[in-house]
Every structure is written in C-alpha cells, then in structure tokens.
C-alpha cells in the first residue's frame, strides 16, 4: 500500500506516493528524475548512491523512502549555491582532474560536502577517512584527495568574501 510522503530535495518540496519497499535511491532516480544519484553495489560499500539527509551523508540504496517524511535531501544536482552553476567542490574536481569515468563522482562530492561542512580545513588523512566509503576504480584517489583539499580552500575563501 502506497503512502504519501512530503520531503525536500535540493531546496524544493516534493510530495511522492511510495511503497514501503522503495528505497530513497529509487524514488530520487525514478520519481524525481535525479539520475546524478547512482546505484553501484546496493549494499553500502561503494558510496555511489551517497546523498545528504538532514546534513548527514548516507547510502540512498539502504535508506527506505518511507522514512524520509519531512527530511531535507541534497543530491549532486543541488550542491551548487543558488545562482551558481557549480559548487566549489565540483569546480575543484574539474580543475584537479579528479573525474575519469564519473560514476563515483556524485557520491564522492557529497561525501566531500559532508566533510567540509563539518571540517573546513581537513588533513589528507581526514579527507581519506571521510571518503573511505566511496570507491573509485579509475583515479587511484590522489586527484580526488587533492580536489577536496582545494575545495576546502575555495569554500573558506567564498565564506570570507561573503558579508556576514
């Protein structure tokens, strides 16, 4: 039996009728058409499906949509601040060549966002720890770690520029 839930995705309110067995990943991709959210292993190992739920990075493949009533979701499509095309993390990934096939990128960037929101100047170890639930089979991770460090700098500079 379907149940109607209201949730906020990337700043927009949505009302969706969901079955109890539908995951957040399925609803984001199939009902809300946000296909930047990927599905890899389906068991919380690869991180390709990572989204923010109320500010926390979670695996959308292991989250039931029915539990998302009233939650604030952020996907890769909603990272960029309003009026901007890209988030500093996305800019840094491009500048540093941290993207190859791109399949892990949206999850990587969301995990990086979660890290940088809590820790604006992470060490390399902290970056690697924060991304340890995101697998990349192309890059060897070095460029990604560099991109997150650069993104942290960019975000700090942007927040210093902003009048408070």
């Amino acid at each position, binding site marked *: 039996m379907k149940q109607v839930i209201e949730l906020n995705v990337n700043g927009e309110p949505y009302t969706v009728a969901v079955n*109890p*067995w539908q995951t957040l990943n*399925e609803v984001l991709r199939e009902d809300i058409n946000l296909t930047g959210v990927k599905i890899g292993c389906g068991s919380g190992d690869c991180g390709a499906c990572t989204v923010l739920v109320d500010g926390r990075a979670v695996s959308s493949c292991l989250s039931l949509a029915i539990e998302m009533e009233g939650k604030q979701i952020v996907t890769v499509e909603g990272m960029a601040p309003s009026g901007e095309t890209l988030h500093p993390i996305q800019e840094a990934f491009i500048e540093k060549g941290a993207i190859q096939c791109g399949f892990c990128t949206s999850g990587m960037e969301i995990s990086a966002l979660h890290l940088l929101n809590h820790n604006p100047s992470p060490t390399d170890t902290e970056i690697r720890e924060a991304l*340890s639930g995101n697998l990349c089979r192309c890059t060897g991770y070095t460029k990604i770690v560099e991109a997150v460090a650069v993104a942290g700098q960019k975000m700090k500079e942007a927040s210093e520029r902003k009048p408070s």
Partner: protein
Amino acid sequence: MRLSHFDYHAPATVEEAIALLQSKGPGARVMAGGTDLLIKMRHAGLKPKAIISVKRIAGLDTIAFDEKRGLIIGAAALLADVANHPDVLKHYPTVAQAARGTANAQVRNMGTVIGNLCNASPSADNAPALLAMGADVRIHGPAGVRTLPLEQFFKGPGVTALEPFEIVTSIHVPTLAPHSGTAYISLSARGKLDCTAVGAGIMLTLKGRVCENLRLFISACGPTPIRARKAEEIIRGKELTVDAMDKAGAEASWETRPITDVRASADYRSKMVAVLTRRVLKQAHESALERL
C-alpha cells in the same frame, strides 16, 4: 536489485512495537538503521513480511552518561553519534573507537551500535570492547523488561538470546574502575571497509602494579566472540611481563576456533589472536597506568 515487498510500521512506543511483532508473527523483523537487514534482503534472499522500525520510538536514540550508573546507549543511537559523543570519548574511548571503526561514514550515519550487536556477526566491531567492560543489554518483551549480560547474548552467527517478540532497547556499560584500561584492536584485509578478520577487546584493572582483574574477548574466531579465560588466568594477580603476554597470547590462540574463509585463513587468524592479545594487553595496561 529491488527489495521484496513488505509492510512497514514505525510505532511510537516499545509496547506498540512488541504488540506489532506479536500480531505479525515470525515474518516480522525489527529494524533500526537497516544497514544489515536491507542487505540481507537484497543479497541473501531474506523476505520479511513486515518491518517494524524502532527509530520513531521516543528516547531510544539516547546516549547518556552519569558517574554512578555509567553509560546508556539506546537502540536507535547512531554509530556516528556514539563515536563522536563527548562523554563516550572521555569516559569510554574504546567504545567510541569501536563505533568509529565500524563500516564507513555513510553506514555510521544510518546504523546503530545495538543493531551491530543484534545482527550477531562473530566479527561485530562493537561487541568485544562492550563484552570486556561487562555491559548489559536491556530487553523489552511481552512479559516486561529483563536485563541480560552481553556475555550471555550471543548464541551463534546471527543468533542471539532474544526470545520471540523481544526487542533490545538499550545497552548499559558500567562505570569503569579508576585503575582500569581498555583496548580494542581489529585486523581486516583492506583497512577501513572490510569486515574484521580478527579482533580483540580487553578491560584490565590494576592494583598497584598487579593486574588485579581482566576480561579478554576475541572476535571473528568462533561462532560468537569468545572469552579467553585461560589467557586471563595467566595474567590475573601478577605484574604484566613480556613473558606473561607471550604465554597469554599463545593460550588465547588455543582457546579460539577460527575457520578459513574469504577474509582470512584459520592459521593466520590463530597467529593473529596471539599477536592481538599481546597488543591489547600492552595498550590497556599502559592506559591503566596513566589512570593510576
């Protein structure tokens, strides 16, 4: 792969949850974070008819410490919140460390310490240290509330002492003795993500320089975490020496029953039980000395 179909319930009270378990029968499963249950459904053919979430039950996400009663972790308290809680970090650093070492950041933001215990994997990262500290589980059921030492909770891989329609609602960790030290060390094939292949958790209490008491548990080397009692006896009542640590390590190897699987061979595990026993003894001893 899609999940099989089920009814979903998110009761507001423990009593309601138990009544639901009773009315839905054996096809019902209790779920907290879902990071074990949903994987078993997707990849291991588990098909529950009903899922009963404990996440809406008020107060179950508690993490509370007081000097007299010790630490209480509720059934819905997330691994990430236990790992980062100031009181846990201060008074039970090994509990925080074990929670932080469980799975990855995403899973820690969904999964719970108690879910990790109830899943009853022999390699559960949160079990050895809590066992060593003499934690109790609080269990609600149709007949009321009961308290069970965690040491009596694990019955086999995926099997616990829970009776039908019972739910673990919290775990209670006693206040640690002033001259005690704790440690947990785990090994896995590829660092962060892989399940633990061998783990050792310990609590050691000093009286002067003498190891007055200790509790040592080895994980992933038998159907449940195993208490290495004979190894404990070698250390108990004596000062800790290199020779005693070596003997205790060898004894702990004899006490465990590792198997060969994808994570490690039985032979490797046996050798590592000895190594980890020495390491946790040394580490807990050092931290107990700091608190002397």
